[in-house]
C-alpha cells in the first residue's frame, strides 16, 4: 500500500520510496524518510497529508504520498515503546 491509502493516527513502516523526481528520494532520506523508518499520518488537510517523520511535521501532497510505499506497523513493534511510556508516566 502507499501512504495515500493510510489512516490518520496510524504508524507505518516505509518499505520503498518510488519518487521519480531527481533528488527527491535523497532529500527524503535526509529528513529520515527512508525504508525501514516509521512515518505516521497526523491528518488530512486540503488534499495534503500531514505526516510525522522523526520529530517533525510535514505537509505532503497526494502525488508524493502515493510514491511512499508503506506497511502498517505491527502492534507488537509499538508495544514496547508504549509500555516504556506508561512506566515513565507512573514513575
Amino acid at each position, binding site marked *: 500500500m502507499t501512504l495515500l491509502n493510510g489512516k490518520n*493516527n496510524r*504508524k507505518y513502516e516505509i518499505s520503498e520510496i518510488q*519518487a521519480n*523526481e531527481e*533528488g*527527491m528520494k*535523497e*532529500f*527524503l*532520506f*535526509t*529528513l*529520515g524518510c*527512508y525504508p525501514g*523508518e*516509521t512515518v*505516521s499520518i*497526523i*491528518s488530512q*488537510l*486540503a*488534499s*495534503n497529508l*500531514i505526516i*510525522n*517523520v*522523526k*520529530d*517533525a*511535521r*510535514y*505537509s*505532503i*501532497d497526494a*502525488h*508524493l504520498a502515493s*510514491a511512499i510505499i508503506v506497511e502498517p506497523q505491527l502492534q507488537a513493534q509499538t508495544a514496547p*515503546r508504549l509500555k516504556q*511510556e506508561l512506566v*515513565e508516566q507512573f514513575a
Partner: protein
Amino acid sequence: MKIALTGNPNSGKTTLFNAITGKIEHVGNWPGVTVEKKEGDIKSSLNPGNANLTVVDLPGAYSMSPYTNEESITSDFVKNEAPDVIINIVDATNLSRSLFFTSQLTELGIPVVIALNKSDLNRKKGTVIDTPLLSESLKCPVIETVATGGGKNGLADLVDAVITVGTGKKKQAALHVRGAKNASTKEEVEAADKNRFAVVNEIVDQVERKKIDSSKQTAQDRLDRFVAHKWIGIPIFVAVIWLVFQVSQAWVGPPLADLLVGWIDAFYGLVEGAIGENANPFLASLLLDGIIGGVGAVVGFLPLIMVLFFMLALLEDCGYMARVAVVWDRFFKKIGLSGKSLIPMIVSTGCAIPGVMATRTIKNVRQRRTTAMLTPFMPCGAKLPIIALFAGVFFGENAWVGTSMYILAIVVIIISGLIIRKITGDTSQSYFIMELPEYRVPSIKRAALSMLNRAKAFIIKAGTIILICNAVVQILQTFNWSFQVVAESMPETSILASIASPIAVLFIPLGFGIWQFAAAAVTGFIAKENVVGTLAVTFAITNFIDVEELALVSGGSDVMTVMGIGAVAALSYLVFNLFTPPCFAAIGAMNSELEDKKWLWGAITFQLGMGYVLAFMVYQLGTLFTAGTLGSGFIGGLIACVLMVGYVVYLMRKGSRSAEAKLSKVA
C-alpha cells in the same frame, strides 16, 4: 576568526545570528527564509577580549548534499571557504534529524560547536537532553541556547566555546560512521548514510528522554485542522490578509501619516520663511518644490509602510506562512506552480526583492522562474503610496480600491501562470513537501525591530535616490533646451516635457497621455516611490495625504483638477504602475534568479504588455460604462493590445504543440 553558522532550515540560525551580531536580518518562522549568506561581527558585549570574530549566516540545509539552490550555498561554503569554526545549530526539538547533518559536518575536520537551540521549547514539552553525554558522543562542545530569549540564553557561553576551540586549532574528530570515509559511488554513499542514521539514532536513544510522543496529535494539529482546512482555510487567509492591509492602510497608517504630513508642511513653511522673498527663485523652488515637496510627498506615506511591515513581521513570525502554502497548493497546481510559490508572493507585498529571492527554495526550474517572474505583480510597499494616493484623491479614500488591487494582483498571477505554462509547454507535475513549523506567539519586539529597520532603509532611500530624482525632475522641468527658465505659461517647452511627451503619446489610449504622468511612470522604474514624488514635483503639489486640505501651495483648486484626469483614467494609471515591470533593483533580483537572458527579457516584455493591456481595458471599459462612449485613442490602443495578445497566443500554441510532440515521442 571566521565562524560559519549552519543547521537545518528553521532551526533559528538567523535569529541566533542577529542575537550575537546585533544585526537585523530578516527572520521568519518557516523553512527557507534565508537564501543567501550574510556576514557580521560578534557584538562587543559578547566579545570582551575584542577578538576578530566574523560570523557568516548560511541558508538552512538538511545535509551536505544539496537539494535546492540555496542549500548548495551552505555546503559550498563550509567545504571551500575554510571557516575556522562551525557553529552547528541543532533544533533541540528534532534531535535525530538534525544530528544527521552534524555528523557530516564533523567529517570536515573543522572544529564544530553545537548550539542546542530552542531548548526552552523542550523544557515546555518535558523533553530532557543529556547535554554532557551528547557532547561526549559527538566529541564537540554542546551549549544549550535560546536565541529568541534574553537573560540567560546561553549565547555568551556559545561565543566562549567558539573562541576556545577556534584558538585551540585542534582538528575536529569525525563521528565514526562505517563506510563513510571511502564512500565514492552512489550505492556506497547510500549505504554509509544509512549507517549514519543508525549511529545518530543510537546517540539520540542514549541522550534524549521524551514525555510526549511527537507522532501523537497535539493542540497545534487541532489548530491546523482549521487554519489549513481545505475550505475554511481560504476565508481565514482572506481575513488575515485583509486585516494586515486594513490596519496598515486604513486604521493605523493614515492617522499617523496625517500627523507626519502636518510636520512636513510646517517644515516647508519654515524653510519658505527662512529663505525669504529675495532668494534666487530657481534655487528656492528647487529646494521647496523639488526637494522638500517631492521627498515630503513620498515620506508622508512612511507610516503606512511601517505599519505594513510590522504586520507582515508578525504574520511571518507566528508560523502561519507554511500553512498558507498548504492551503493554496492545490490551486497553484492548477496553474503549474505549487503552494511554495505563494510564500515569495506574500513576502513581495513588503518588497519584491526578497520576494524574488525567496523563489530560490523552489526546486523545479520552470516553477522557480515562473514564480520569480510573477511575484513582482504583488503590490509592494513602495507601490503603497501610489495606491493610497489614487484611492485618496480620486476615490474618496475608499478601501475597496486598495483591497481590489491585491485581488486583481492574484487574478493576474493566476492568468499569467496559465499563459506561461502554455508557452513553455511544460506539463510536468512536481512533488510538494513543506515542513510545518510549530506555531508561536509572534514577538512584538522583533516585529518592531523589523519595522524600524525598514523605516531606516526607506528614509535613506528618500534622502538619496528619491531626492536626486526629484531634484533632476525639478531642474529638467525648469529649463528648456537652451537652458533658459521656462515661462510659467509654457510648461510644455521644458526639457522634461519634451522628453516625456513622445512617451505620453503611447498612453493616450490608456487615458493618461499627459507628459507629467509619463515622466512619473518612467522615474518609477528607478524606485516606485518616485511615481508619487515626480507627480508632486511636476504638478507642484506637496500634500497628497490630507485630503480635506487639498489646497495647493500654488493655486487653490484640488489635486484632481490640477492633474486633469478623471477617476477612470486615474484607476487605469494606478493599474498601469502596479502591473508594469518592478523597479530596477527588483529586475536585478529577477535577473539573478531567472539565470537566463531569454527568460529575463521575456519577463520584462510580458510585464510591460500586461500593464498596458490591463490599463487599456480599465480605461476603455470604464469610460464606456461611465460615459457611454469609448475613451480617446481606442483604435490605436486596440491594435497594440491585439498585437500583444496575438503574439502571446501564438507562443502558447507553439508551446502546446511542442508539448504534444514531446508526449507523442514518449508514447
